[in-house]
């Protein structure tokens, strides 16, 4: 056992980020997303951040930098997936339809091979959500895929943290048919909305008691983990990520939002194209999905490739998501490319994979574009990101390479093959080298 641990530790050290290194990628086609594309550009990475980005002839390369000739390659920001179930989707249990106090943090398996596939697809940030079979299935978590191959075994070491060191995430909610089940779950849409209103009203009353106590522990109501989270939502401190498909369900979310004033991102939004103006008027962003045919359930029979284009044209902020395992993280670029097929313009399509998602997670000050000062999260591709023939060559997070197509083990996760589905078990890494496990 000690020998194995030592070997594992040695591997971890070898893989550890050398943040002090400065790397300059030159002569790449840079897709900055927030600015013009730069056909012959230089990207300088230092201390895990982007130190410089610009045309090759006007961007200074710091002395001592490792220079990588990236001619013929395309570099774009790391992809932001606003809705994924990689590593776990079970937070709430069967005891009731509304369980905001439950955290996906406590269910995430960081050893899931899904994370290896995610970085193979160019993803660097994922919002891992609990499932949609509940009106609220719990808190989501915003993960930075720096944890991949790092040896970091706690999801909180992967997560984005706030100033107090708490993990960042939203609250998963859902309406429509997925959460309609036998009691105590709602049986109708009307009952679904009623149950949600009832809880938010309870949360308002709880909030009033909290505020009346004004920090006096003696007057404070007993802690209620469910209501505490709903109070965060009412205060606008935690965004609601709301699964919804049918146009009338979308309108129900907007109605509840108006009543309780929460901040919400609509997810899936299959019939969003029918009510795009109303969504735009409410100023609510949409995180949408590409699947290859409509149907599979009544509320998804009007799903179309054009949804992204119609929403964007109406002025709605649009991002795509994988909903992995509904679609595979390795094919995330495809989702937006199919949006282009449905009429979305290229600029919005590229933003919908990156900065638009970052905005929906309130992380756009750190990620989503190639801009000086932002995290060095980026993807190196061998061609245009929206072409079926293009492959992800490398994925970097905070200046560290987390995926390299030239590495056989990374390639296994990029393409698949025997062993690709197995969870990652770092302490068995050396068994085939004679170590005990």
């Amino acid at each position: 056992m000690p020998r194995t641990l030592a070997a594992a530790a040695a591997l971890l050290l070898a893989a550890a980020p050398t943040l002090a290194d400065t790397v300059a990628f030159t002569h790449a086609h840079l897709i900055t997303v927030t600015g013009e594309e730069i056909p012959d550009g230089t990207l300088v990475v230092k201390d895990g951040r982007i130190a410089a980005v610009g045309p090759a002839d006007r961007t200074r390369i710091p002395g001592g930098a490792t220079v990588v000739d990236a001619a013929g390659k395309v570099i774009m920001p790391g992809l932001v997936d606003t809705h994924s179930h990689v590593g776990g989707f079970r937070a709430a249990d069967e005891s009731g339809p509304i369980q905001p106090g439950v955290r996906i943090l406590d269910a995430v398996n960081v050893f899931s091979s899904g994370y290896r596939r995610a970085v193979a697809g160019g993803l660097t940030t994922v919002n891992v959500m609990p499932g949609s079979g509940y009106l609220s299935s719990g808190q989501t978590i915003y993960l930075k895929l720096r944890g991949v191959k790092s040896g970091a075994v706690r999801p909180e070491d992967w997560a984005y943290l706030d100033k107090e060191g708490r993990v960042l995430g939203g609250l998963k909610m859902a309406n429509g048919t997925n959460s309609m089940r036998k009691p105590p779950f709602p049986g109708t849409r009307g009952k679904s909305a009623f149950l949600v209103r009832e809880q938010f009203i309870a949360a308002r009353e709880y909030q009033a008691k909290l505020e009346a106590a004004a920090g006096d522990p003696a007057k404070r109501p007993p802690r209620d983990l469910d209501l505490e989270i709903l109070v965060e939502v009412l205060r606008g401190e935690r965004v609601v990520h709301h699964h919804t498909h049918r146009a009338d369900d979308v309108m129900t979310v907007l109605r509840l939002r108006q009543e309780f004033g929460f901040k919400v991102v609509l997810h899936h939004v299959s019939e969003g194209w029918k009510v795009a103006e109303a969504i735009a008027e409410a100023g609510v962003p949409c995180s949408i999905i590409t699947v290859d045919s409509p149907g599979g359930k009544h509320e998804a029979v009007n799903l179309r490739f054009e949804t992204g284009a119609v929403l964007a044209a109406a002025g709605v902020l649009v991002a795509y998501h994988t909903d992995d395992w509904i679609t595979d993280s390795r094919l995330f670029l495809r989702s937006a490319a199919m949006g282009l097929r449905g009429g979305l313009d290229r600029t919005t399509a590229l933003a919908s994979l990156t900065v638009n998602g970052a905005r929906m997670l309130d992380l756009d000050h750190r990620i989503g574009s190639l801009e000086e000062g932002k995290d060095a999260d980026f993807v190196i591709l061998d061609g245009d990101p929206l072409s079926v023939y293009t492959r992800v060559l490398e994925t970097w997070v905070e200046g560290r390479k987390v995926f390299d197509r030239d590495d056989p083990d990374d390639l296994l996760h990029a393409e698949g093959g025997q062993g690709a589905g197995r969870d990652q078990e770092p302490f068995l890494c050396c068994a085939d080298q004679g170590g005990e496990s």
Partner: protein
Amino acid sequence: MKTLLIILLCAAASAQAQVAVKGGVVHTMDGPAITDGVVVVTDGRIAAVGPAATVAIPAGYRVLEAAVVTPGLIDAHATVGLSGIFNVPADQDMLDRAGPVQPELRAVDAYNPDDELVAWLRSLGVTTVHTGHAPGLPVSGQTMIVKTRGRTVAEALVREAVAVAATLAPAIGPEGVAAPSRAKTVALLRQELIRAREYAAELAATGGDGPPPARDLRAETMVRVLDGELALMVTAHRVRDITNALRLAEEFGLRLWLDGAAEAHQLLPQIKAAGVPVLLHPTMTRAFGETENLSLATAAQLADAGIPFALQSGYESYVPKTRVVLFEAAVAAGHGLGFARALAAVTRDAAQLLGIADRVGTLAVGKDGDLALFDGDPFEYTSHCTGVVIEGEVVSQLVR
């Protein structure tokens, strides 16, 4: 009523209109691609194909144009028309869970040509579909081949029965019955084939003298499998299940189609030696459970190994309710298969594998006038299918 009849007759007449399709590039799949090509379809069949400079379009023909023209796409294995778009019990006819083995169930008796998913596939260039009973039960029923058109199954039909669908793993049980184990599934299949042999022997023994044995539709179907008239399409993903399928085929001399075959990349020499074709799982099948070891590059590996294969949309029990073979081929094209072999896998090669190459799969004189029109590389995500022709009838002009 009379007026309606006249309208219907007129509609039928216009459907028979003669059509010519001009393409910036025409991929005939029967020789090199033709730049500035023309395909002339007369009375539903291809009458001429070649460069615009040498092929004249007869007067009065309706002319369609596109940047890229291919043969109508062939989906080598689907359940569309049986597994409806709404995914509720009322429109799910691909699995009858009364018993584990029901080869007597015919696809023609279950196919709904009006299902919206048939139209969805058609609008994306798919003109021919091998569809029927789904993977799941050890033996779920028969499959057939249809064109993605027609108000009735008779109008759509190409072949009434082509295969019996079997599943080795993960097989499900009949309603309320536990799923059979791997070994039990093989035992069920062997028992069924042995019973069919005995039934055939009984039939032969009567030799016209005396009363024949009472008709047994189940055994009759399996006799057709034993005779090789119907293929046995076996869904198997794991190495051991694929191996079991090959062993079964050898024991009974079956015409086996390996279906799914997520771990085929581990058994290329064995599959090649057995001379068994593969209906490969959709490239974008979810890599979980039995398929956790699938590879996006398997199609390329099968092609490199010289194993006949075709691509399929497969069976989906949730969302998306059907996949689209155009998109599945596209992802395979981008993962080592390349454009030409990917296009062959959804046209010529699929037709050969399914035994319908005399009618479809290439653009050659005498073949059915089935064409798909695109505004760019058909496999690029950002291209669109702009037109579809089936036997000379323009069945879609959506831009999708």
